[in-house]
């Protein structure tokens, strides 16, 4: 396991039930503290988890590696890990963000050629070809408490799915499989900004109907963006799409949801990010998806409104009001014109 964030730790603990796990964290201080405390933020660390002091240890001792680090630092980590990897390794990541080759503070357009999913980054930076990803309604806090959950493991290779399932499945952690890794990755990434918007609408106390409306239209928006990038709709209707969307859009323990919630209380984005100790991927995703929707000329009102709220000081109430009145005529139209 590479990454000792709350999700990485939750997965590591699940894996440790059946396997010996070697864990690597980015900073030596964090590693030392985990080792000394035998716990991470009040969560006990399973006795089958051991600590690796270098990425070399991971590459040399593990056949199956789960990288779970924020998307903004994913490539850098892969470059560092790469010298110790070879085609016999299998990597299953659980990072839900895009890698972009432009400066998000200063760019002209973003199209498919500018963005990479994490599996594409692994493919580019390493000799590994058998790659998978893990996505689904997996709130770290609930997994930690031992509550039941399910995930989908996606890979072009059946053996990666089977191996992933074998190592992580348990009575309280159900695993599904899919060969559509690109679709599953996109679903996992795109749902994050819908979660921010839902957090905002929840904070404004507009009621459950409004929230359901937002989630449902959010789903449509995700599908349109996904199709423009070359994905099909199926993945969005499964565990990593609708499943994850329902979980993150109803839980204050989701980081992305809580960003929205705090926006609704009048907090500024800069203050929110400063005070969070882990990354909310949705913040970065909003910038990227807004640019994508402009490039591909997709009607995507939610991402545009949230972008203006977060980066252009549009009052949240005004933005949400606009969304709630957004004219629409046909329900679930995305099922009818499946291309």
């Amino acid at each position: 396991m590479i990454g000792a964030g709350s999700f990485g730790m939750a997965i590591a603990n699940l894996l440790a039930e059946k396997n010996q796990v070697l864990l690597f964290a980015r900073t030596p201080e964090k590693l030392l503290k985990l080792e000394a405390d035998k716990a991470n933020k009040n969560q006990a660390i399973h006795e089958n988890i051991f600590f690796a002091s270098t990425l070399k240890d991971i590459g040399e001792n593990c056949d199956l590696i789960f990288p779970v680090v924020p998307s903004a630092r994913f490539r850098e980590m892969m470059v560092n890990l790469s010298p110790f990897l070879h085609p016999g390794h299998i990597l299953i990541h659980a990072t839900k963000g895009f890698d972009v080759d432009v400066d998000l503070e200063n760019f002209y357009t973003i199209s498919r050629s500018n963005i990479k999913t994490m599996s594409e980054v692994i493919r580019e930076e390493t000799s590994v070809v058998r790659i998978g990803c893990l996505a689904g309604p997996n709130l770290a806090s609930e997994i930690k408490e031992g509550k039941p959950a399910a995930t989908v493991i996606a890979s072009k290779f059946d053996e990666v799915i089977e191996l992933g399932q074998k190592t992580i499945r348990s009575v309280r952690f159900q695993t599904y499989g899919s060969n559509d890794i690109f679709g599953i990755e996109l679903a996992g990434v795109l749902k994050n900004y819908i979660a921010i918007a839902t957090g905002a609408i929840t904070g404004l106390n507009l009621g459950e109907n409004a929230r359901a409306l937002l989630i449902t239209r959010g789903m449509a928006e995700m599908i349109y963006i996904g199709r423009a990038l070359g994905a099909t709709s199926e993945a969005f209707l499964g565990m990593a799409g609708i499943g994850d969307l329902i979980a993150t859009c109803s839980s204050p323990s989701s980081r992305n949801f809580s960003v929205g919630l705090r926006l609704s209380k009048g907090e500024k984005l800069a203050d929110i990010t400063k005070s969070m100790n882990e990354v909310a991927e949705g913040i970065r995703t909003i910038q990227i998806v807004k640019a994508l929707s402009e490039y591909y000329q997709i009607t995507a009102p939610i991402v545009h409104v949230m972008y203006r709220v977060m980066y252009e000081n549009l009052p949240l109430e005004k933005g949400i009001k606009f969304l709630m009145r957004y004219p629409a005529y046909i329900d679930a139209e995305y099922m009818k014109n499946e291309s």
Partner: protein
Amino acid sequence: MQEILKTTLAPIIPDITEWPIYKLSADKEAFLSEIKELTILKIRSKIHTEKELNDMLGKVLYSERIRLTQKAWKADPSDEREFWATIKNELLNIEASELQGEITADSPNLKIVHQIIDRYLAEIVGNFKPGMYNFARKSINVLVSKILNAAPGNRFRFWKTQKTIGEKLIITGELEKIRRLGKEATIVLVPTHFSNLDSIIMGYIIDRIGLPAVTYGAGLNLFSIKLLSYFMSNLGAFKVDRRKKNSIYLELIKNYSTVSLQRGANGLFFPGGTRSRSGNLEKNLKLGLLGTTVEAQRNLIEHQVDGAYKKIYILPVVLNYHFVLEASGLIEDYLKSTGKDKYIRENDAYSTSYKIVKFITKFLFANSEMVISLGPLLDVIGNEVDDEGVSIDHLGRKVDLKEYFTLNGNFKTDIQRENEYTRMLERSIVEKYYTHNTLLSSDLIAYVGFVKMKNRFPHLDLYAFLRLPEEDTEIPYDAFEKAVDNVKEKFIELNKNGKILLSEEIKLPTKQLIEHGLANMGVYHHKSVLKISESGNVISEDKKLLFYYHNRADGYQLEKYV
């Protein structure tokens, strides 16, 4: 490093009786029974019960009866109907009680499978006779020299002097490395496919660079021409009948390829399947035969002796011609299938397909050069290999091929995994087609000419544009030359970045380059694909062909520089 072939190179294995393809033929009985065994094994890994096997046989019989009644050829053996009638009777004679449970060793269904396999194999199998090979080698040399050395016709002022065959059929590639590694390894040539001439040219090239002969699948229909049949069946060609699409037959063809590769015989197949209809380089390949390279390599690794195993290398080959005689027919097919009712076909006597003989006679008088670029050697995953034949991944790191076939350090067979690897190999081959495509003068001017003409009518779709009268699409020469100059510079830049190869004329001053292109492009079509009109403008008498030739340089995203 791309080296240019100067003279015919000596065979890397001088003694023909040492060639794997010869040994294969000499050991025919064992070779065929290995294919048969493998095929039965694969059928039984998918089908477990008598009932399923019986159903499968029913489908095979059904599709064969359709072939016999609707797609019969004169060349079909006279006892075809009789054979299938016997199979039908045997199937009918199987008692319901014999359809219960798992397949047993004395299964009546299995017995029928054996009969069918034996019959198919007898038809498919090729022969390899050194005497015939030497004869063919001499004739093909004469033929190709004739094709390329024909005295310059009076239409072509460009060629004043007779050129040597090396100057007219330019072969480039990592020749030394291919020859050195080819001594120990199996090489599978995978050329692009534009013309019926390709097979002959490939036969010629393989001999010229000194590689042992290859096995290749040739359409059964070609074997109905007696002389050709006699030739090919003694040169190692195996027969493929495109009409037979049943599961046993397809499995047999694949296994024929797998087993011959495993036994070290070099292979050749056109992975695009058929000739490129549009004139574009192939983007999607047929994965069936390509996948046999992965399977054979896995088998070789699995059954390695003393830690060493024979390697299989894939060699992409790009054939570049200034003109393709069948172009009219090909592009017609393409437009018909893509345009549907938007494409209105004109009556054009020349669009019918050409007979091989007519085709070669015509070509004898042609006077343009060909450039054949051999791409880098690839392993079956699509990695390039270094001078010692070790796989090098996209990061330039040495990788152990064996590891792609292991899980947790243990060797494991996994068909689904191999299908994915075949896709990776496909992508790698296609990429090499583009990077090892050699831009000819005619490709460049056709590209610029077509894009420039089309740009004047942005509101028209391709089909409406093609219907415009020729005077409407004229372009002034000066603007054309300027655009050629621009695009040429971009191609030179791409070349520096390893994205394409350039023929010598591309480096000529633009005016001369255009002259060279005009003199060489599609010279044997009855209308000028591109020419300078009396008023000095650039016109095309056949925009469909212009589109076809333009497609060769398409795919490099240079439209905006025209």
